[in-house]
């Protein structure tokens, strides 16, 4: 048996199968994607080929780069099943029919190597049924891997192993799914719906039932269930619109036919005439004509919602949802709110939490698995047991008892206790033995949140902190809203440098947050602009330049470890790092032109330096400048780390981590690998084209203006950017030093902030989150 997975085969090129194949390819691993031979047409691979072609046009994109798409080899199961022999893992993602799956496994058995894992992406069929009639050898290699849609973006993977599954085979798949595909693996038992969908479906059904029964509007229902419960703001009805209303009857039918007779789901499963009618009429949600919500294009894109009582659409309302503590995560305050709000919150939350609590240990071995599944599979901020801790296990128990509802065993076990606690700086959970056990992270997983439990920051102010993450590595963390950057961050960087130099070997720049940094704090900048405090702004710009260059030339390695959004100043700090270890989902770019400015914290020079060192760049003063100008003037943001590399934000040697939980650990390793014989980089010297180059860039920009793709003010901003990137008055024979470029950048920035149209852009961005095209 090969101990690593070098090639994968996915059978079934539907949304899930194709998406899984894309994620394998995103990991840089070749993948064979097979489907049936279509009944019509001469191209026998048409279905799989069509799936790849469709994915190349889908947004959000299943592929992280075009080169990933080239790793997918397409075919059909009649002509190409023998390719399975080359693969170390076969993922079956065909239609949810037992006979078809079993038939396929029989064929697979004939062609696969022993030790090649076979897994089903089924969400409904028990593993025991799937392997009926197969050999012992096949059963040893078989497991269920249940991905969530879309596979690139949803982090949860539920793995179910059977009685006969070889632990080594399961471990190999788990390792690959975790490290290469970036999934967080949750072990589930072989029970219907596994964990996330079982609880999720129950929760949705409760929410729909209660809204109908209580006569609530969908807006109010979603306002109660959404943010106040730490659930995405789509709530329940918005979520059903998103996944497809027509999916609900299928899930219901599947669960009612497979769940044990005494499962509480049977008592709440019901058919709603309105929902049946909506499906029949094509109102299946966002993919259909509309759902519980819709945009009425005939009425000027009016936002509408359906009236659950009459079935008619009406203008969407802004309901008076939970307020005060009830709106801010105090679940007890929420369920005790007066009137409909408290009643609905209790009906949904109380029922869901009790149901989730009843599933340990039948569906999952412990509370951690349940919580992880709901957080990663449904994007809940807190899992059911974390919510019970917030609400109070005792409170929940008493209220269930008062209503004559059964109290799950694990709630009784908890009694007055919480399901989680912090002991000696370690997070622990309550086990079924009534004892607390450490929450053990897989090898190579390091979270700053865990570090914080056991230590105090080395430095801290209102916008940033410095932590000791072990092995002589310090970690700079941003802490402001959206991790915005301001003077406080710069001050902390300046303080951190001597501290790290004297007591540590290396520094990583990292945060646990979803967004690495949204860039400079525009709110502060706008305030300064409105009172014309230009000297304050210039201080901020100069301070940022100095702090970032301080990091760059510090006598220790600095590794940037971004995930999610890293734009503007958040991108610029990365550009000043010795190396970047990025999460695969990195959305980075220099977006200053969008708000009428140019990068002001050294981003221009760092990008020129990257372009200068990029392979395949034609010689001469213009190509590097043109490449950077193209990226920065259009404020383009990468859609993945792989794309950020193509755009030169990442260097060829920079690392990409697929699993978000492994990012800090990987960044730390990268930093340590640079420690021996570390020497800071030498300041670059540029040969820039000067006014002639600026003229050429302006001409290109004017072309876009003519084509209607750029505004009049875009011309002013892009010309300012062109002036910086071409070195101002530089002659191509001159050498432009880094400090000269910084000065030019700073002066240009200060010129633009005085422009009313730039201020208008900043204001608009603050108010709407979208660029103003003035």
């Amino acid at each position: 048996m090969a101990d690593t997975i070098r090639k994968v085969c996915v059978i079934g090129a539907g949304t899930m199968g194709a998406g899984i194949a894309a994620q394998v390819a995103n990991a840089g691993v070749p993948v064979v994607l097979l489907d049936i031979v279509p009944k019509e047409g001469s191209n026998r691979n048409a279905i799989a080929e069509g799936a790849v072609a469709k994915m190349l046009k889908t947004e959000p994109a299943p592929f992280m780069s075009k080169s990933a798409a080239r790793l997918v080899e397409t075919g059909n199961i009649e002509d190409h099943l023998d390719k399975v022999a080359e693969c170390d893992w076969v993922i079956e993602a065909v239609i949810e029919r037992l006979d078809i799956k079993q038939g396929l496994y029989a064929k697979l058995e004939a062609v696969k190597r022993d030790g090649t894992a076979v897994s089903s992406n089924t969400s409904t069929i028990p593993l025991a049924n799937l392997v009926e009639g197969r050999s012992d050898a096949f059963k040893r290699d078989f497991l269920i891997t249940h991905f969530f849609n879309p596979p690139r973006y949803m982090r949860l993977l539920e793995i179910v192993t059977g009685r006969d599954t070889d632990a080594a085979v399961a471990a190999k798949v788990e390792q690959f799914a975790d490290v290469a595909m970036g999934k967080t693996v949750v072990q589930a038992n072989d029970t219907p719906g596994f964990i996330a969908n079982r609880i999720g479906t129950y929760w949705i059904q409760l929410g729909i039932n209660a809204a109908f029964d209580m006569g609530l509007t969908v807006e109010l229902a979603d306002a109660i269930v959404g943010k106040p419960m730490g659930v995405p703001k789509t709530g329940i009805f918005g979520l059903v619109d998103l996944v497809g209303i027509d999916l609900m009857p299928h899930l219901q039918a599947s669960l009612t036919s497979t769940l044990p007779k005494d499962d509480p789901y049977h008592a709440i499963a019901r058919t709603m005439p309105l929902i049946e009618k909506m499906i029949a009429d094509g109102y299946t949600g966002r993919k259909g004509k509309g759902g519980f919500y819709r945009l009425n294009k005939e009425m000027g894109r009016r936002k509408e919602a359906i009236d659950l009582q009459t079935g008619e659409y009406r203008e969407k309302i802004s309901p008076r949802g939970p307020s005060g503590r009830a709106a801010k995560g105090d679940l007890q305050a929420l369920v005790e709110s007066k009137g409909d709000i408290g009643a609905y919150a209790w009906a949904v939350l109380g029922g869901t939490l009790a149901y989730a609590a009843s599933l340990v240990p039948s569906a999952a071995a412990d509370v951690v698995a349940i919580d992880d599944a709901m957080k990663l599979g449904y994007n809940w901020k807190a899992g059911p047991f974390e919510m019970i801790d917030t609400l109070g296990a005792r409170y929940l128990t008493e209220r269930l008892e008062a209503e004559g509802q059964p109290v799950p065993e694990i709630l009784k076990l908890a009694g007055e206790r919480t399901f989680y606690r912090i002991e000696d700086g370690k997070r622990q959970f309550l086990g079924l033995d009534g004892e607390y056990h450490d929450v053990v992270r897989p090898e190579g997983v390091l979270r700053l949140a865990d570090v914080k439990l056991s230590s105090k920051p080395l430095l801290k102010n209102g916008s940033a902190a410095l932590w000791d993450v072990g092995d002589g590595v310090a970690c700079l963390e941003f802490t402001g809203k959206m991790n915005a950057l301001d003077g406080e961050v710069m001050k902390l960087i300046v303080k951190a440098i001597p501290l790290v130099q004297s007591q540590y070997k290396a520094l990583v720049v990292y945060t646990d947050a979803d967004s690495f940094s949204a860039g400079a704090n525009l709110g502060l900048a706008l305030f300064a602009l409105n009172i014309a405090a230009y000297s304050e702004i210039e201080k901020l710009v100069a301070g940022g330049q100095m702090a970032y260059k301080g990091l760059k030339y510090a006598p220790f390695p600095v590794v940037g470890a971004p995930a999610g959004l890293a734009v503007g100043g958040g991108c610029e700090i990365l550009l000043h790092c010795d190396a970047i270890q990025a999460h695969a989902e990195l959305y980075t770019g220099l977006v200053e032109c969008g708000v009428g400015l140019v990068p002001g914290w050294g981003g221009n020079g760092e990008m020129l330096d990257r372009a200068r060192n990029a392979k395949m760049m034609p010689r001469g003063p213009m190509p590097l400048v043109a490449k950077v100008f193209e990226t920065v003037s259009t404020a383009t943001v990468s859609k993945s780390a792989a794309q950020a590399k193509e755009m030169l934000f990442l260097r060829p040697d920079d690392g990409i981590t697929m699993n978000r939980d492994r990012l800090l650990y990987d960044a730390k390793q990268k930093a340590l690998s640079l420690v021996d014989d570390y020497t800071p980089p030498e300041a670059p010297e540029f040969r820039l084209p000067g006014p002639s180059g600026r003229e050429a860039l302006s001409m290109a920009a004017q072309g876009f203006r003519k084509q209607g793709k750029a505004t009049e003010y875009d011309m002013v901003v892009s010309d300012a950017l062109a002036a910086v990137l071409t070195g101002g008055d530089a002659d191509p024979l001159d050498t432009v030093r880094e400090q000269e470029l910084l000065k030019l950048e700073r002066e240009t920035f200060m010129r633009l902030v005085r422009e009313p149209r730039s201020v208008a852009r900043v204001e608009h961005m603050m108010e709407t989150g979208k660029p103003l095209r003035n």
Partner: protein
Amino acid sequence: MQSIVIAGYARSPFHLANKGALARVRPDDLTAQVIRGLIGKTGVDPADLEDLVVGCAFPEGEQGLNVARLIGLLADLPISVGGMTVNRFCGSSMSAIHYAMGQIALGAGEAFICAGVESMSRVPMMGFNPMPNPALAKKSAVYMSMGETAENVAAKYEISRSEQEALAVESQKRAAAAREAGKFTDEIVPIETKGGTVSEDGAIRPGTTAEDLAGLKPAFDANGTVTAGTSSPLTDGASAVLVTTEDYARKHDLPILARIKSVSISGCAPETMGLGPIISSQKAMERAGITAADLDVVELNEAFASQAIACIKDLGLDPVKTNIDGGAIAIGHPLGATGGRIVGKAAELLKREGGKYALASQCIGGGQGIATVLEAV
């Protein structure tokens, strides 16, 4: 002056830049293959050649370092044959022919290969390092994009979008029919590439309708009339013409296509560079002692439909006799190669269609026109 003739013409297939079948072929290799093809089909003894003159609009990168000399060596021309690269943008390879003619008139040689090449995939328009003079940019429209000049011509001559589209449809129709009938087979030298042999044009879009074109967005000016469908596409290709004295051609039994009767160059306003052929053609016809009515064949480069229409109108050309096998909107316009193609094509058509006089003319970025009048032999 002794009689000078076109004694052979060949070209590569023309393919769309970046996505076409020649995108990954080096321009020097491409031209060398065309030259070998021309030598093979004419039977000229390479040892008799005085010089290889190669037109190229952006002679840098793989087209740099006096690419003509490099091409000569790649084509295994004898070491004694010279090599010179000529740049007059789109007029480069027609200028190469004019230069050869002048050298012959000087008594400095009797046989020349005049080639042209442009890989618009591998060397971008404007080159890798465009560095315009800011002072000149303020004072002149010489750096204006070609698309903008086409819009200016359309506006000045009040040429509607549908008129432009009608010309483009006709160009596509004629080119597709000519390809279908095998009328390009003789002129095309099959090119060996890593992806196999390429022996047919790739830019032509058969079945293009006015409705198709009407659906396109303006390509250069949001409020304009010029679209990708009424512009010549970015193209990869090479051409080569054998220019000799008539005496030499007869002595060596070369396949004479036509005699060069007269040539001319003219300048015009850069912002309406597409009108360049008007003055240059008039000058060349005057030098030949003929008028437009005497022309039996016209090859007028279709850089853009708008400028082609303006030239046809002002020169009083017969649309039926103009671009008989289609023009650059359909076939493609590899800048440096086009001049050689249209002179060679005009000569070949004069022989094929019969008649006395042919005109080949084209516009040139920056504001110039170039023209050649041919006479049947």
